[in-house]
């Protein structure tokens, strides 16, 4: 369709379009809102509305009037105290294991060459690409009384009686650590990679031994990555359901499982909702802390 005539007037076309573009840029705020609107509607209908309704229900008592009785029950009942105790113990223990295992691993990855680290990264990323249920199932098989781990240890003569590794707290912690490890290693690795290697050389030039340079320079600089990674893991552990439900064998009752039981076994929506609100409040506070730490980390760099 391009002919000689239209080729002759590029300057005026340019001017018109510039004016048009300029006017259009003022409408962009509305455009932004318009384009994100379908997504916001989905999040509103499938997330804000349901959780908002739960919040409302948590303040409704048995007689249908507004009351704090659901929260009072959580506060007073020894069962809920125990559930919160177990949840925090499991979340804290998992985070501790993941930090102790993940820090050396992230350090190892950050010191490798690009080619070697991208190969090693497959190991860290692979769990992300396998369904949580598949991994939990795999651990159940590995850890069961007649499983490979018990068989091997018996065969080697390390143990004389089979260890109970699944259907209890041990199994839950192993399974959860496996699921959570990448969530710590990836942000930690990123923060370690951003540490200027010249700082370590400078420390060494000034006479610091490698271990001194590590603890005085590298470790403090990696702290923001470690802290935010650990908080993400902790928060995810608090609301975790699948792995403790399967590997805990009914012995490790976490908040999420109690909420589920309140609905599906006892049909007590008020109790479930109030527990949910407590969980969401704790999660929100911890996420805010994590956000502040990550902002500090960004500022220090």
């Amino acid at each position, binding site marked *: 369709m391009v002919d000689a005539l239209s080729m002759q007037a590029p300057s005026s076309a340019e001017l018109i379009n510039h004016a048009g573009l300029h006017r259009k840029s003022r409408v962009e705020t509305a455009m932004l*809102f318009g384009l994100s609107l379908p997504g916001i509607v989905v999040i509103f209908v499938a997330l804000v509305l349901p959780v908002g309704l739960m919040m409302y229900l948590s303040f409704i008592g048995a007689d249908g009037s507004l009351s704090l009785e659901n929260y009072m029950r959580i506060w007073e009942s020894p069962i809920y105290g125990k559930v919160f105790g177990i949840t925090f113990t499991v979340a804290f223990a998992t985070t501790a294991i993941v930090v102790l295992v993940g820090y050396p691993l992230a350090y190892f990855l950050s010191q490798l060459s690009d080619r070697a680290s991208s190969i090693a990264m497959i190991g860290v990323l692979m769990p992300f*690409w396998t369904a949580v*249920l598949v991994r939990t199932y795999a651990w159940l098989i590995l850890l069961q009384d*007649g499983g490979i781990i018990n068989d091997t240890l018996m065969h080697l003569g390390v143990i004389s009686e089979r260890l109970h590794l699944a259907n209890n707290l041990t199994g839950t912690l192993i399974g959860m650590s496996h699921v959570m490890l990448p969530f710590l290693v990836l942000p930690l690795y990123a923060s370690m990679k951003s540490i200027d290697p010249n700082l370590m050389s400078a420390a060494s030039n000034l006479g610091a031994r*490698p271990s001194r340079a590590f603890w005085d320079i590298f470790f403090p600089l990696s702290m923001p990555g470690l802290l935010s990674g650990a908080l993400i893991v902790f928060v995810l552990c608090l*609301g975790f359901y699948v792995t403790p439900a399967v590997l805990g064998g009914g012995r490790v009752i976490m908040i999420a499982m109690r909420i589920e039981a309140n609905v599906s076994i006892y049909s007590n929506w008020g109790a479930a909702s109030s527990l949910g609100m407590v*969980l969401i409040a704790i999660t929100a506070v911890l996420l805010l802390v994590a956000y502040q730490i990550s902002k500090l980390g960004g500022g220090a760099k």
Partner: protein
Amino acid sequence: MNWFKQSVTPTQITNLDRLWLYSFSIIVLVALVAPTLIVVPMSFSDSQYLEFPPRTYSFRWYLSYLQSPEWIRATVVSLRAAVITSVVATVIGTAAAYGIRVGSKLLAAPISAIFILPMAVPAILIAIGSLFIFVPLGLVNTTAGLVLAHTMLALPFVVIVTTAGLASYDMNQEMVARSLGATRARAFFTVTLPQIKFSVMTSALFAFFVSFDEVIIAMFISNGTGGTLNRKMFNALRDQVDPTIAAISTCLIAVSITLLVLAQIFRPRRDA
């Protein structure tokens, strides 16, 4: 013994520490990968119980999966929901990411925050709350209900990945197209989209996995004939260790690996 105490370079840890670090890390990496890989040979076992290594091999657990109408139906439900979720979440999420990129800088942060929200709320709360909303809307046990909930869960991933893709794209190219007379929509589809297509495809892949991997919400808003594969697997796992699940797991791993390989093939190559 002196070798152990030496450093390779002045800034690096001693050889002894390095040896310790390397062996430790390799053990951890093996522990990360092993559980997934061990399911594969076990799924071919002929035994009623799971054993490793299997004494005799057979396809009996695959047959038991493929010949079970219930498992197949659950698989179809899951696949259908995941494919539709993938399409819907990618379209909606890409539009939002584009809006965040080109729109006013003032609204970008709060709108991004809204899209991160589904990651921050524990899934069990979404699950129970959804039941409240879905019962009056008639969405329980429907594909539409699953797609709605899963799209919401997948949106953070899509928006994050696509926003990252758009961040490294030079928006001036689109301005050039528009100044040459293309409409904004045409400029987006012919100039911008081809250049961020890798991010968009990665988003679609993520959304597929989020939906396919999801258990808890599906447990509440689907049941019986409308139940997803994960829901059925989860219920089966709580009762007993059924080797059929090993066969299904192996199929799922194969699907993951296939999609990963596809993602690698479609990835733009800068050095080629």
